[in-house]
């Protein structure tokens, strides 16, 4: 079975080093590239009074994302924020072109399916975005597998027409939708 996590479940997870077993940070927000890919995480210090850390955790340095922790090889995997092109797509919507949360999902023929409320990541090795959670006009929730995406702009996500009838209504369904593409994700 493919295990999946929502972005909001990843926020707040401890970032733990494999070599020393220390919780060196916790996930503050997800950071997206301009093309909608997950670039990595901004970080908070651990603990009740932990403020924001300067370092970023880029996707390439993530050993695994699991339900209990984000694993990295060592604390050298945290890199200083050098003003990358990526921007934060947190609940506030972030700034710039890489906004993902709140984007409207439309089909190629122009029907609105809903707005993106969260992202879905694959548990296990690395950091892989596999889909989006969206809120439909009738307030119900649905999931879109990432491979169905045609394009994303910062305001809209365009998906094929046939997806309108294939929306997944729970994560298990999305897992089945993702499974055929999983081999391609684990490069």
């Amino acid at each position, binding site marked *: 079975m493919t295990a999946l996590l929502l972005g909001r479940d990843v926020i707040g*997870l*401890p970032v*733990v*080093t*494999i*070599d*020393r*077993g*220390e*919780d060196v940070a916790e996930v503050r927000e997800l950071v997206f590239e301009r093309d909608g890919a997950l670039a990595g995480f901004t970080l908070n210090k651990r603990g009740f009074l932990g403020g924001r850390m300067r370092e970023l955790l880029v996707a390439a340095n993530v*050993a*695994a*994302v*699991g*339900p*209990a*922790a*984000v*694993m990295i090889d060592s604390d050298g995997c945290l890199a200083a924020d050098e003003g990358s092109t990526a921007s934060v797509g947190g609940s506030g919507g972030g700034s710039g072109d890489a906004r993902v949360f709140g984007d409207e999902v439309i089909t190629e023929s122009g029907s609105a399916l809903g707005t993106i409320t969260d992202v879905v990541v694959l*548990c*296990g*090795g690395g950091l892989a975005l596999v889909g989006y959670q969206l809120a439909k006009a009738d307030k119900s929730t649905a999931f879109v597998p990432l491979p169905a995406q045609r394009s994303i702009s910062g305001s809209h996500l365009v998906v094929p027409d046939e997806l309108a009838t294939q929306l997944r209504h729970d994560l298990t369904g999305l897992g089945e939708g993702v499974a055929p593409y999983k081999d391609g994700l684990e490069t």
Partner: protein
Amino acid sequence: MTVNLSELIGRKVVAVDTAEQIGAIGHVRVDPGTGRITAMTVGKGRKAQVVSPDAVRAIAGDVVTVTSAAALREADDDDERALVGGDRDLLRRRVLTTAGYEVGAVADCEFDDDGVLQVVRTTEGEHLAAAFRGVGSYAVVVAAADT
């Protein structure tokens, strides 16, 4: 013969040169790369002192024997201070896999006579020493089953 960590902690320590008891084992540090015990403390808390493995004669008997009370020393680097502070303790520490799953807490560890880790027993199962990746104040890390 094997030694369980839970039995090693608290075992009396006797110096073989004077035959005097000089304390009891407080903390044990295991190197994740080799699985070997790389240091132990005699005593706990602020009075704990470090003993290097080269001063240890045997751990598997009724008492732990060390060459001399003079072999005990203060913690002299960050890693040894972490050991004295309990941050390298394995028992009851949460166990995470390299895939980010929590798989219980350490119930006990089994060493051979030479102080080489054989098995980590958790509240949910067993992990061979080869799966042991790291230990720190937050967690013991073991390799995920499929890696």
